[in-house]
């Protein structure tokens, strides 16, 4: 079925091309309109290069690189479409999304109730797409030869509100006397929300005397530069910097599990594996370039996730995302 639609689309394009060539010097605008009319019946991403416009995305710095990778690849198909990707944090992204400023909002956690309310108030309707999986990774310095695995309790002891743990030997008696230097995401990051919720038991509850930055590269610099450094961020930042960082295994009571593509996909990396989302504004779906971009993003999910070092969706998750897309298209057309 799908292949048939493609063949028809290609044939239609070829025909149009011939018509345009035949009418060389004729009214170009006419043939453009015809092209637009024909291709709406076929998948837009197959039309190749006649879309234009600007897609605004903002949100999580964890998901940002994914959308950026998708946008870069998409440029090869539709050079006329500009996708700008901001990284002001999941919370900051929803803030703008619900004011109607952006078309897409990247999120490293599901939308919160108060954000749903804010969107509702402004009349912004949206569709949620899971685009990848993530294993929130706890990292240490490569010179750290004492810690390979931390329990959830140990992490909580380090990170809970008001914690005064400042040395590795306070984390575990077998660890050496080495100052503990903490780095982590700022409070507007979805990674921060997720980590505090899973580890400290309450979203937003965390000690505050650590090097906090919304920019994950600052955390990388910090942990790389301190022998006793410890930090956490999304899996992709670890993958990018695996030569200069060491990922710690996490023990949630069922033994030590290292973060990896497999453990994130099958959910055994507990409790820090999580879904990553892109939220799309329904109103923007009426614009062919947004529709095409989302389609492209889902069609090429595995390649994009792998090239930008994310954990791809499982087949099941991908099927669900695609059917959500089809439903949204139906609705936009209705």
């Amino acid at each position, binding site marked *: 079925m799908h292949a048939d639609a493609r063949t028809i689309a290609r044939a239609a394009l070829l025909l149009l091309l011939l018509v345009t060539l035949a009418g060389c010097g004729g009214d170009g605008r006419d043939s453009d309109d015809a092209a637009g009319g024909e291709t709406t019946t076929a998948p837009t991403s197959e039309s190749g290069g006649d879309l234009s416009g600007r897609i605004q995305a903002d949100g999580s710095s964890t998901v940002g690189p994914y959308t950026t990778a998708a946008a870069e690849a998409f440029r090869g198909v539709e050079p006329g479409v500009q996708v700008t990707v901001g990284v002001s944090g999941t919370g*900051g992204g929803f803030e703008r999304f619900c004011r109607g400023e952006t078309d897409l909002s990247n999120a490293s956690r599901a939308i919160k109730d108060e954000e749903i309310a804010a969107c509702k108030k402004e009349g912004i309707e949206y569709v949620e797409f899971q685009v990848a999986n993530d294993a929130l990774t706890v990292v240490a310095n490569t010179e750290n030869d004492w810690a390979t695995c931390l329990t959830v309790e140990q992490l909580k002891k380090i990170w809970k509100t008001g914690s005064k743990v400042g040395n590795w030997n306070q984390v575990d008696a077998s660890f050496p006397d080495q100052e503990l230097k903490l780095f982590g995401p700022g409070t507007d990051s979805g990674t921060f929300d997720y980590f505090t919720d899973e580890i400290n038991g309450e979203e937003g509850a965390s000690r505050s005397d650590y090097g906090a930055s919304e920019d994950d590269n600052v955390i990388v610099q910090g942990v790389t530069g301190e022998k006793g450094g410890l930090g956490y961020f999304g899996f992709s930042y670890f993958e990018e910097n695996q030569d200069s960082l060491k990922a710690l295994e996490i023990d949630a009571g069922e033994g030590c599990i290292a973060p990896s593509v497999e453990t994130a996909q099958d959910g055994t990396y507990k409790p820090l594996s999580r879904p990553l989302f892109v939220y799309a504004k329904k109103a923007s779906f009426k614009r062919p370039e947004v529709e095409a971009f989302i389609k492209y993003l889902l069609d090429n999910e595995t390649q994009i996730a792998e090239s930008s070092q994310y954990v791809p969706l499982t087949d099941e998750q991908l099927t669900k995302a695609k059917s959500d897309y089809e439903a949204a298209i139906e609705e936009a057309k209705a």
Partner: protein
Amino acid sequence: MATPELTAGAEPRLRAERRRIGEDVVKAVLALCALVSVATTVGIVVALFVPAIEFFREVSIVDFLTGKDWSPLFEPASFGVLPLIAGTLLVTAIASLVAMPLGLGAAVYMSEYASPRARGIIKPAFELLAGIPTIVFGYFALTFVTPLLRDIGVPVDIFNTLSAGLVMGVMLLPTVASLSEDAMGAVPRDLRDGAYALGSTKVQVATRIVVPAAVSGIVASFVLAISRAVGETMIVLVAMGQQPNLSFDPREAAEAMTAFIAATGAGDVPTGSTEYKTIFAVGATLFLMTLVMNVFAIRLVRKYREAYE
């Protein structure tokens, strides 16, 4: 100077017969130029203080000014600005300790000792230094100076106040050196010649005649340097860390007021919230700090000013 004597009663006929429209236009345009800076200042003060005042309706000003814990974005939030002020003061002090003696030394050398050829090399070098973007200085501090400090055995954190302050001092060097040198260059030749005639050595002339005579200009250069240090953002944002710290230990990471403003203002906090208004409260505090310092400095300059006619 010598104005031509005019005979009493004979009004000089310098005024034009007719009003010249062109002149009025020029005057208006020039007045407008002056007005732009005044209006901008007023605008900034209003834009800064209105949200800051709103902030102080929500947070007690006493807590703000005396609190020792700064974590406005965390739960539960705490709004003690002292750690930020400490960060700013410490990095400014370190930068001043570098920039003032080195800058003054360089100025004395260029004004009193350097051959024209040496000046021809040093002056452009300083100008080049003055042209380096501050973000470059920031990464220079983080990726060069901090590792260097560790190599020579100073146990600094990866983000630390010391290397940020040292590099900021180097950044301010040209400001101090060139303004001080200008002031020294303006000291009349007669004064130096007089001192030499009395048998003074070069060092005596430099330290007892030229520097005291140029002191108002030198102080002005110091004040400008301090103001820039207090307001400098990129170096402290990149190299000093973003961790409020009241310890006054230059080896540790700390957060300067400007770094907080830049990091928090980058579009993350919801507009209109208390967290958002902290940016303005910190900005207003910074503004008042520089204002007080400038007023104090102007007094100082007036007091020590030596005028030669």
